[in-house]
């Protein structure tokens, strides 16, 4: 065992008996400890689920702060069993928490299985066998209950081999032995075609038995959580359990809040700014959007992927319906059949489907945008263009995106971040150039370049009409901090002068271009079209008071303070961006890309 001698790391050798959590805990325990163990376990599981590859898992386990809290994670210990069961009670309500609990406990189970010695395997089998004998006496499992299957598996192992000792040794060596199991016990192996099948039986090598055990554990978790839910009224009669449930749920919400919602200070997506903001969407989403723009149709799952992403970005139901109506009312580009899948005639179906995604129909589930890992896992068919472009195995596609493949499945997020950095760098150089030009123009001609919506006269070239031609370009303007919000100078620049500057200026769309632009931080944090100087100073003072990275002390801040803190954190990170390459950008879902990109961009603009 590699961790045997290192007192600072989580000692796997201290594992007692590996468990399936078949039997509930019993005994007496002070409430405070109960809550304590439950929260420790929750926090560990949350951290575990944040890891995207084996190295990160290693890192988590080696983290001293994790180790010191890990006594309730020693497999088979009473603290382990107690904390596990408490989490079942507390997190069985929403689909979100249920899924989290099942997948994180499964991850923990697999982790433990991977590290067991043969003695531990032996103990595990013996313990499971005994627990099962006890359970099978009282319960009458329905035919698809995992208990029947677990019992079957133990039975087969007993039948085919002479002792647990022998089996345990074989599991850890590259055993030649195989088990003939009904295929539904090895679904993962079947799906990946890693076992051969014959008449419904899968030939599973003994060394892969942990996969089978993992699947059984997953089913046991799903069943257990369902049971806990069915009995919640009974268990929650006890006010202490009610309290525990509330505490655990709150802790869960706080930790995961940031994942689901875009900071409220970023501009809400609307139809009017959608196409211009699309420039800042991650490649997976911009592909979908541009396909939609070109063809006016998207394949079913691509449409779901995009709709949920836009919802995450703040697009309201109304605007979403308008968008799809607009696009699907246009004839699709060939080779698509113009008589199929048009808005007209299918209106009710499309409206229902979009409303369903917004949680207003059917099961009323508040769907979130898909995370990177689920997008990467998508199995695409003909004419679908969703999925993660970095996870495509095609060599030619990857190089086109100017990003090195960083190796493994889970590093696609890093590839995406790398892509963002490339774009940022390109932008930075063009912004620098534009800035120089503007300064030159400003100093040289004594003119400032601002736009005004109503400014339209011949001979005067307005940036705005330029923007009407290219609605997805961006605007870079002079310092209106010195300019009161209600007045501004008109555009006075001759066509020739403009032509020379135009390729290097980044021009914005007129609808998104509000009067008070300039200091980009203030543009970002503007509310209701008005320039709130107060906010700017709030941010400034927060920045000044900050000396170290802002640890979101969530739960104690008010929403407003929380947002200002986030704003300030983003500003601080971005305003000192000179070396883009060194930035550590963590992309877990597509909206992360957008958030980082936009804040960094503004930070770059803010750099003097």
């Amino acid at each position: 065992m590699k961790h045997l001698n290192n007192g600072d790391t989580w000692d796997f050798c201290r594992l007692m008996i590996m468990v399936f959590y078949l039997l509930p805990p019993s005994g007496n325990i002070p409430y405070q400890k109960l809550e304590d163990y439950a929260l420790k376990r929750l926090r560990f599981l949350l951290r575990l689920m944040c890891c995207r590859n084996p190295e990160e898992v290693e890192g988590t386990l080696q983290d001293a702060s994790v180790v010191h809290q890990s006594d309730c994670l020693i497999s088979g210990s009473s603290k382990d069993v107690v904390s596990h069961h408490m989490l079942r009670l507390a997190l069985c309500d929403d689909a979100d928490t249920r899924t989290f609990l099942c997948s994180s406990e499964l991850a923990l189970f697999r982790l433990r299985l991977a590290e067991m010695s043969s003695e531990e395997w032996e103990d595990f089998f013996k313990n499971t066998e005994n627990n099962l004998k006890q359970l099978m006496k009282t319960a009458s499992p329905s035919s698809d209950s995992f208990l029947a299957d677990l019992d079957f598996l133990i039975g087969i192992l007993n039948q085919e081999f002479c002792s647990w000792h022998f089996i345990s040794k074989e599991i850890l060596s590259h055993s030649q032995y195989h088990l003939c199991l009904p295929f539904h016990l090895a679904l993962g192996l079947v799906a990946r075609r890693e076992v051969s099948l014959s008449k419904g039986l899968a030939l599973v090598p003994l060394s892969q038995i942990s996969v089978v055990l993992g699947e059984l554990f997953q089913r046991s978790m799903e069943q257990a959580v369902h049971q806990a839910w069915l009995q919640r009224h009974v268990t929650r009669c006890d006010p202490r359990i009610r309290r525990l449930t509330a505490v655990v749920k709150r802790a869960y919400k706080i930790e995961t809040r940031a994942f689901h919602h875009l900071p409220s200070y970023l501009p809400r997506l609307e139809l009017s700014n959608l196409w211009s903001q699309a420039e800042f969407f991650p490649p997976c989403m911009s592909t979908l959007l541009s396909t939609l723009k070109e063809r006016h149709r998207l394949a079913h799952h691509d449409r779901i992927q995009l709709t949920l992403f836009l919802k995450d970005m703040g697009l309201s139901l109304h605007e979403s319906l308008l968008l799809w109506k607009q696009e699907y009312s246009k004839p699709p580009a060939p080779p698509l059949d113009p008589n199929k899948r048009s808005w007209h005639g299918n209106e009710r179906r499309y409206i229902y489907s979009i409303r369903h995604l917004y949680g207003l129909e059917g099961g009323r589930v508040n769907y979130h945008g898909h995370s990177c890992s689920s997008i990467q896992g998508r199995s695409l068919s003909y004419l679908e263009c969703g999925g993660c472009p970095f996870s495509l195995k095609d060599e030619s596609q990857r190089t086109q995106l100017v990003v090195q493949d960083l190796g493994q499945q889970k590093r696609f997020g890093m590839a995406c971040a790398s892509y963002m950095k490339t774009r940022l760098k390109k932008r930075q150089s063009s912004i620098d150039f534009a800035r120089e030009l503007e300064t030159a123009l400003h100093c040289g001609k004594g003119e400032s370049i601002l736009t005004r919506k109503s400014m339209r006269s011949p001979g005067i070239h307005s940036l705005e009409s330029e923007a009407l031609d290219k609605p997805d370009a961006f605007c870079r303007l002079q310092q209106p901090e010195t300019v009161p919000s209600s007045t501004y100078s008109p555009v006075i620049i001759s066509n020739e002068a403009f032509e020379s500057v135009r390729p290097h200026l980044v021009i914005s769309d007129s609808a998104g271009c509000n009067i008070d632009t300039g200091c980009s931080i203030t543009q970002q944090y503007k509310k209701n079209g008005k320039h709130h100087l107060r906010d700017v100073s709030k941010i400034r003072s927060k920045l000044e008071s900050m000396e170290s990275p802002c640890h979101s002390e969530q739960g104690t801040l008010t929403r407003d303070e929380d947002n200002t803190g986030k704003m300030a954190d983003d500003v601080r990170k971005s305003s000192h961006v000179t070396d883009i390459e060194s930035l550590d950008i963590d992309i877990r879902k597509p909206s992360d890309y957008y958030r980082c990109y936009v804040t960094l961009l503004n930070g770059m603009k803010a750099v003097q």
Partner: protein
Amino acid sequence: MPETHNYDPNTLPDLLPLYYKRLFPYGPYYKWMNYGGVPKHYFTNREFSFTLKDDVYIRYQSFSDQQDFEKELQKKCPYKIDIGAVYSHRPKDHKTVKSSAFIAQEKELVFDIDMTDYDDVRFCCSGADICSKCWPLMVIAVKIIDRALRDDFGFEHLLWVYSGRRGIHCWVCDEGARSLSTQGRSAVAEYLQVVKGGENLVRKAVLPEKIHPSIRHSLQIIDKHFLEYAIKKQDLLSYDFVGKLGRDTASRWAILQKRLEEGRNMNLVKGYTEEEVKLQFCYPRLDINVSKGINHLLKSPFCIHPKSGKVCVPMDPKNIDDFDPMEVPTISGLIEELDTSTVPETDTEGRRLKDYKRTSLKPYIEIFESFLKGLESSRKGKMIEQSDVKMEF
């Protein structure tokens, strides 16, 4: 000889009532859906959905018995019938049940193969059209999937159906298949899936170092059809496509094979290029999402395809080479046949013959009936087994 060319979609509203009155095989259909009355509420808790005229769609239809089903169909004359899952309660009463208690419990494992998913590798038609040049793809699909489901998974009761225009469906009706979980369905579908990747991916079939036995079997099946399909029917390596190399597709393919062989001998070519090409062009392309969901609704056999007028008929996988989608009867053809049929109305024993047996629907009904016989004998066998165990006679 059925008149398959003169179907006019506008006549559908007039023809459907006749079809549902005289031709829809209620008896056999009910026998199927009822599964011998075991468990008791299987038929009454089954969801059907109807698509009526003007695209009106109604879900959660359920019926108490064959008579009830017959009456409703004749009354509503749906343009399309979909079969859904067996629920915990009667679907038509679902609003009276708490939503968390109303759950889909069982359904056949289904597969849907649509010709449009092959549009990037077929060049004779596109979209909803099919012809004799691209139909071999469906033949290959039936053979490969039928073999895998029977030999690898041990399923026995498969109902293959032609959807009436451009696709085929497979209904796996074994008890084990009907009670399979979502994960189980997913796993079976993924086991069968080889061609993956969307529009932006060129190489869609990637084989690992060791070829799985089911893929090997599939390649053997494809090989039986490949040359005929790729050369004579699709002309995959036509001049426009490839240029001045070789004389025709056949010779170009031979050249390609030779070059690949040479490349392999020189260790320049790794992997299974030829096999991957065959798979990408011919291996069945399933829509995984149809197979995954227990509550997914799929078009029922024996309904009429509104655009082609063809009946959604069963196919015999053992004789799939002989199946011709162009010969499938249309509703207009069948109605005409009824009027002009020379087949006597009673059989040799004086029993009245059902109308569907007096038309060109007969062979297809017979395929369905032999499928039903299989189901029934399997049920009987199981009951005998169970009573042996209980020592009841």
